[in-house]
């Protein structure tokens, strides 16, 4: 029997994996995928809780979060393409003109 707790634990694990990925990866595309993982962990929590409470709210929240994530994806890819056009690399270690 899979209960709501299972979903919550799974989403917590996904969220942690995503966070760690953001912190250790150097390719912005991969970092961005990790951020998506974090957002989707939150989405999973919302859906599971909405189901648990018998409310439709949780699912609606996820739709909003998805739309927001899609907008972020396109803006992020746009920025990455723009950087690639001028710098010929998107390695995050090489995008560091400005420091403390």
């Amino acid at each position, binding site marked *: 029997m899979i209960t709501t707790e299972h979903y919550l634990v799974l989403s917590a694990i996904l969220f942690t994996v995503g966070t760690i990925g953001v912190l250790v990866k150097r390719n*912005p595309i991969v970092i961005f995928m990790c951020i998506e993982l974090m*957002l989707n962990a939150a989405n999973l929590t919302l859906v599971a809780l909405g189901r*648990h409470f018998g409310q439709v*709210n949780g699912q609606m929240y996820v739709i909003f979060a998805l739309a927001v994530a899609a907008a972020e994806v396109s803006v992020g890819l746009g920025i990455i393409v723009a950087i690639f056009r001028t710098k010929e690399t998107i390695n995050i270690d090489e*995008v560091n003109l*400005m420091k403390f």
Partner: protein
Amino acid sequence: MNYAANLMSIMPVLIVLATGMIVLLGDACSAQWRARRWYTWGFSLFGVLMALVQAGNQLQTQMATTFSETAFAGSIVTDSFTLTCYVILLITALLAILLAMTYLENRNLNLGEYYALVLFSTAGGMLMACSNDLIVLFVSVEILSVALYVLSGFARTEEKSEEAALKYFLLGAFASGFLLYGIALVYGGSATANHAGTTNLADLNLYLINDGRPSVLLMCGIALLFVGLAFKAALVPFHMWTPDVYEGAPTSVTAYMAAGAKIGAFAALMRVCSALAPIGEYWLPAVQTLAVLTMFGGNILAVVQDNVKRMLAYSSIAHAGYLLVAVSAASVRNEQAHNAAMGAMAFYLMAYAVMTMGAFGVLIYLSRKGRDLQTIEDLRGLARTDTFAAYAMLVFMLSLGGIPPTMGFMGKWFIFSATLQAGQVWLAIVMALASIISIYYYLKIVWMMCFQEPERPEVVEHAVASGGVRATIVLSLATMLVFGILPGALGILLNAAETTVFRP
């Protein structure tokens, strides 16, 4: 409440959004470069003014009836704090648009999207101020930030600008991850045996009043929520992106971002904290720690900067710290102190917006064709070469440093007294100490401008010095001095919190 009334209550937001869309469409569909230039600039100004009039109208009605209404099934609240934030944000947007045109043309960036994006992010900030539901809050935070990601990379062929956009985007999206997960956990954590969880702030407030002990899930959610909002508001230790983004973005964007994003973030923070006030003893120490860290971190790091934009970035972090002190004071269970702190915060936001726009306006005024003003050295002997800019900058620096008779001083004073009223004496003292540090680097600029000989004594032609930039500087100066001397004239701001929906 019928549908028309729902829409009426967010009319200023709708006006701004519609203006943004019309500007975008008109810009893309017209071929005449010269016509587009005036159309986009003029129409955005017109739209913002319309929204300002509408918000002012609503504020007046609001003050007369002291009736705070919720709309869209309780997910949006229109009280005087909301409307005050509308007015402040719209003034910021107005100044940002006034500043932009000639500066952008000098950098070959004058595209209609700029104005549309400024309008969209203003609308996002306004929605943040009126959101009464965490999901609305999330969506409006994203409307604000996605537009700002694009704006900070607006100089799309310049490496610095692109780098700023990438850093801002990655960290901003990271923060939204925390925010959304925090919201999800709050949704789960606010459930009881009989009731489903909620993301509605008013319901959350009621639940916390009736059922004092928060669950572990709720505490985790609140913590993540604060992390997400702290990123957006650039609080130490979540401030890493701020100096880079402020330095890399085109200066007109930096000006708007410094003021607009912070107003939105703090309006949202204030809403969340007011709703969570009944369990203040659990999270207030964290907010106070953040405030102390932010004030000292921002001020100490600002001291060592050579780049004016970076220095202003760190100074904006320090100001976020002062605002956080107001948030902390507003979260006590004492209605009088709560109201005083809300009003002080609204006043300070206004002061901060005006002085930031003014200071960046001077930087734009001084930037030459193809080259931004960058280092503090560039300001050497400015009083000789350009008296107007030098004395305007002098006033803005004094105001940022909190020296009377400017609005910055009055704002700090209001926050200080509200903090004392709330019984957080030590925090008030820390704030005073931190602002003493800040005077050092603001006066360093003044000293460089007024007491140093210029390298080249001739008067320099400023290619960017258009009417719009001058108007911004003069408007900011006037606002700052008038309300610095007569703060009572902004009584609306001081009474902002009288009718908010929350009970502390």
